[in-house]
């Protein structure tokens, strides 16, 4: 157990260090989400009145597509260097390796959210409250588990750029339903209960964390 934990931390540190040295992904993702906000502005004609009702949708759209890029990249470097096979040949458990890569990809996506949320507040004038941040972070956990599982899967499949969104997006919908409601309520435009949506997010997080950790062995061990 402690050994698996140490492996996961080591793999996550490796990925984060690689990102720190190259500084490729997070700046690119930050630019990507800013561009998404700019495009939303032209698509919706945003003004002070309609911003609170449009901003949550823009937030989730930008986050979902940034997430797809982030998780797709999580296994891209390993594939390009064919180093995943080497990693898996070590006695470390595949689940621990998967957990490490998922942890690193999650933190990189959180880095992207650290740009997205303030930018949304700046350009759309929506409140940047603890409630909004908490809902986004809670959704990120489960979305990352699922996204990394399917990213690991498509890494060794043809047409991977095509397949990753097709597999991941439908299963992310529960997080967007609950997270969407929580953010709408927190931004003052939705109906329903914030606490209920957050409880649902926690349930989904637990469900998908358990399922992905059970399934990771079959996906990585291939």
């Amino acid at each position: 157990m402690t050994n698996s934990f140490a492996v996961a931390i080591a793999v996550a540190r490796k990925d984060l260090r690689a990102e720190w040295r190259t500084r490729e992904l997070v700046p690119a993702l930050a630019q990507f989400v800013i561009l998404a906000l700019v495009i939303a502005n032209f698509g919706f004609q945003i003004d002070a009145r309609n911003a609170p009702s449009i901003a949550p949708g823009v937030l989730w759209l930008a986050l979902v597509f940034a997430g797809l890029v982030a998780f797709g990249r999580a296994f891209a470097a390993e594939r390009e260097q064919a180093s995943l096979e080497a990693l898996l040949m070590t006695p470390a458990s595949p689940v621990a390796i998967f957990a490490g890569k998922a942890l690193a990809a999650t933190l990189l996506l959180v880095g992207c959210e650290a740009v997205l949320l303030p930018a949304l507040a700046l350009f759309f004038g929506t409140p940047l409250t603890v409630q909004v941040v908490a809902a986004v972070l809670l959704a990120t956990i489960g979305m990352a588990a699922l996204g990394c599982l399917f990213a690991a899967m498509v890494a060794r499949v043809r047409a991977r750029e095509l397949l990753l969104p097709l597999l991941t997006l439908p299963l992310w919908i529960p997080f967007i339903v609950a997270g969407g409601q929580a953010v709408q309520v927190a931004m003052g435009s939705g109906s329903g209960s914030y606490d209920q949506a957050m409880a649902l997010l926690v349930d989904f997080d637990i469900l998908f964390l358990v399922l992905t950790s059970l399934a990771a062995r079959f996906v990585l061990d291939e």
Partner: protein
Amino acid sequence: MSRYDRAAAAAVALMLVAGAAIFLYAPADALQGTVQRIFYLHVSAAIAAYGSFAVVLVGGLIYLRNGSLVADRFARAGAVVGLVFTTVTLVMGMLWAKPIWGSYWTWDARLTSTLVLWIIYAGYLLVRQLAEPGRQAARYAAVVGIFGFIDVPIVHFSVTWWQTQHPGPIIVNDALPPEMLATFFLTMACTLFLAAVMVVIRYRIETLADGVDQAMAERVQLVGPREPEAEPVN
């Protein structure tokens, strides 16, 4: 006539019987008139889709446990048949919605989750196609099939969990007159039989396809890949 032909003929005959019951025996709905007759096949197809996806789930679980090729072929067969019945459910639902709700589509939880179900299992088939045939495709697809099944209870309970335009459960709530109920159960039994026959025939097709793949692989091992044709000499 092979066993498969006979089973298929029996399924078609039963569906015709169900059709006769729907149009000749069941009474017309007092409010909606004849368009309500869509109900019988619409709901039956949805149940057949649930059943087919359950085959995908169980087949996937068994495959991951012991690598059984039989389980994997059943899973493949279930996914195709389930997708067909989900399509039937969606299309018939839209045809029903247009005259009654005034539009083909509304974003309510039941409709949306059913559409998502369709997308998930279309993705399942895409994984099968894009992954390396054999162990990789089977394993990856099993994982997708297990995760995808989470949507089935969501579809089913969506009408109780959320406020939906789509009506809630009416069979278990005893809201139908006996003639309608009898017609529904007949249609459901016939549709489930049709689905089972389709799964079995599809299973046979998958077995034959696996045999062809294996024969090709053996030929490559024995003779080597086919030599490219020599350039014609001028």
